[in-house]
């Protein structure tokens, strides 16, 4: 009964005209970003975050969520047609997707990617709707030690899955925590690391930081490269997969959906990990693994389903625990905070419009995405032909206006530019910005949880090791860290990452 009453609440919020409109705007922009190589969903979400300042909180989160899962749909288009993934979660789709396009089967490849995404996305939302209320009940029993350990685990998983050096990712997490400490200490009221600059009393702004590190740095890194995109004029027909295609893909879609959903829930996990694991499992369990890499339709169906299901799963820790499982969710947390909403287990009770509105809008968003990605495929192919020399100045303009419009301050724009240059240099020296951003958002939350835990235990650190959830999280984090430094495993990991990139 609860399921249906929650479902009714979700649909009633999502069905409001404004929410429907901004859900469409979100999924449209998401698809656009997914289609355009060179700008990932994190960069795009950070750039578009200022658009939500004047919106009601529920509408804002509905739009931002739309951009997120919309990008998962759009990413497959470029992977299949031009062998360049629109975003990282579609990297694996290039392997078989582009082979299918070369064999004249671009239509079924795009079709199964869209249908697989739709089925997985919808199943993921059902899972999200079913699992969220019990998760909230569990989350309400979480105390500060559990929160602290869970956040540590999230950071460790994110650094473990980093594409570059784990040491560098851990270092970035440390820098993120430190940057999150700038400003007045919430408890003692002491200014920290403000260097006497009044602007820093409120801390470093989330918008200039993420727009600079994720948006501007991406533009600066891309303008110096020579990007050649050859969009072949191959006719795209038979978008609807045949009965044989469905027969080969149905289990891949289902397996990808379930796997992706649970990997999405994992702190630090997400769509990228889900797509790679789904592809690997599909290949391993196939009776004809030799077809993979040569245009096997399951090789498109599995990762595309997994990354969309993961996008839904990632909302569980965000909506129930208030903990972002990846950098995109950290941006969503930022959006919630800008609207004065504290994410956490009380969100469902205090702001049911946001909680259920986001879930309800995802049902509509998935239907919209199916409509956007199949009949309008020609439009996306045409957009692919827009030269980067025109796109990048416009992206940069959005960054500047976005940073300015938060406080109508040029100082914020300069801060964003500074972080843009830092982000550009970080990319050059192989330091990934994602752990920094996640740690920046988690830093103040971690500090509060750590202080509360120590006060609870009268200064005893054993509190983290005597509570089952807390010690469980810390053990997993420790195992991951230890295994990542075992030389033989390090080599294996490097090999896998080399293959991935």
């Amino acid at each position: 009964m609860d399921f249906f009453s929650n479902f009714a609440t979700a649909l009633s919020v999502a069905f409001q005209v404004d929410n429907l409109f901004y859900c469409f705007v979100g999924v449209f922009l998401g698809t656009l970003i997914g289609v355009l190589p060179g700008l990932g969903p994190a960069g795009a979400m950070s750039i578009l975050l200022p658009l939500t300042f004047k919106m009601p909180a529920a509408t804002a989160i509905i739009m931002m969520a739309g951009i997120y899962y919309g990008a998962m749909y759009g990413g497959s288009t470029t992977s299949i047609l031009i062998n360049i993934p629109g975003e990282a979660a579609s990297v694996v789709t290039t392997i078989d997707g582009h082979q299918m396009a070369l064999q004249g089967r671009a239509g079924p490849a795009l079709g199964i990617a869209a249908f697989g995404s739709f089925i997985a996305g919808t199943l993921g939302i059902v899972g999200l709707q079913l699992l969220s209320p019990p998760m909230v009940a569990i989350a309400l029993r979480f105390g500060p030690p559990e929160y602290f350990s869970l956040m540590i685990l999230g950071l460790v998983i994110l650094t473990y899955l980093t594409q570059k050096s784990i040491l560098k990712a851990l270092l970035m997490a440390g820098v993120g925590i430190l940057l999150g400490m700038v400003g007045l200490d919430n408890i003692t009221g002491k200014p920290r690391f403000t260097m006497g600059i009044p602007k820093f009393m409120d801390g470093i702004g989330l918008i200039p930081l993420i727009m600079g590190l994720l948006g501007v740095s991406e533009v600066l890194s891309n303008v110096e490269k020579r990007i050649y995109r050859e969009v072949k004029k191959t006719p795209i027909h038979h978008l609807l997969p045949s009965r044989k295609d469905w027969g080969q893909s149905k289990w891949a879609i289902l397996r990808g959906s379930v796997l992706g959903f649970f990997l999405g829930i994992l702190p630090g996990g997400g769509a990228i990990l889900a797509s790679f694991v789904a592809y690997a499992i599909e290949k391993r369990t196939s009776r004809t693994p030799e077809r993979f890499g040569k245009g096997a339709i399951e090789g498109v169906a599995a990762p595309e389903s997994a990354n969309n299901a993961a996008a839904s799963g990632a909302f569980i820790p965000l909506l129930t625990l208030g903990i972002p499982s990846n950098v995109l969710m950290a941006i969503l947390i930022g959006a919630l905070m800008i609207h004065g909403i504290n994410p956490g287990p009380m969100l469902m009770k205090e702001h049911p419009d946001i909680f259920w509105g986001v879930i309800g809008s995802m049902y509509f968003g998935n239907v919209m995405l199916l409509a956007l990605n199949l009949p309008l495929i020609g439009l996306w192919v045409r957009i692919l032909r827009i030269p980067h020399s025109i796109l990048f100045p416009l992206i940069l303009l959005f960054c500047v206006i976005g940073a300015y419009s938060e406080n109508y301050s040029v100082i914020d724009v300069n801060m964003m530019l500074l972080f843009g240059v830092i982000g550009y240099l970080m990319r050059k020296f192989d330091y990934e910005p994602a752990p920094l951003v996640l740690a920046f958002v988690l830093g103040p939350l971690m500090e509060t949880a750590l202080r509360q835990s120590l006060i609870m235990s009268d200064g005893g650190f054993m509190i983290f090791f005597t509570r089952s959830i807390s010690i469980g999280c810390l053990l997993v984090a420790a195992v991951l860290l230890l295994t990542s430094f075992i030389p033989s495993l390090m080599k294996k990991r490097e090999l896998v990452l080399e293959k991935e990139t």
Partner: protein
Amino acid sequence: MVADRLSSVFWLVIGLIAIYGSVKLGIGSAREPGSGFLPLLASLSISLIALGILLQTFLKTAKSHRTFSSLWQGLRWKRSLYVCLITVGYTLIFEKLGFALSTSIFLMALLKGMESIAWGKALLISVLSTGLCYLLLSFSLESTLPKGILGF
């Protein structure tokens, strides 16, 4: 200069400065952690990891090292520098000249400076994009944009 060596020294210095700053803030006790408690843990981690990366650069074979100059090899890095300078210039004139004029100039400078786009095309794209942005921000999103000398 080995790229990783340079970057690790940079982070080591940042870490050490942050340790000093954290201690100055007051670490407090485990019973009552002070303002510098978590910053100290974070800056200690930064310093130790940076030291680890620095040591790695001496242990790895010379072949696996990337040099500082190799990071920009074969890339048109002057374009990135140009984009930065133009954006700084944009922030300087943004409030004085107003949104419309400064944005048109900014876009023109980027479009003309990055690729050899014809003047007419660059002008058309800049003016159209500025106009669309102005409409979107001023009317749809009710943002207050600087008016400057043109009054809009």
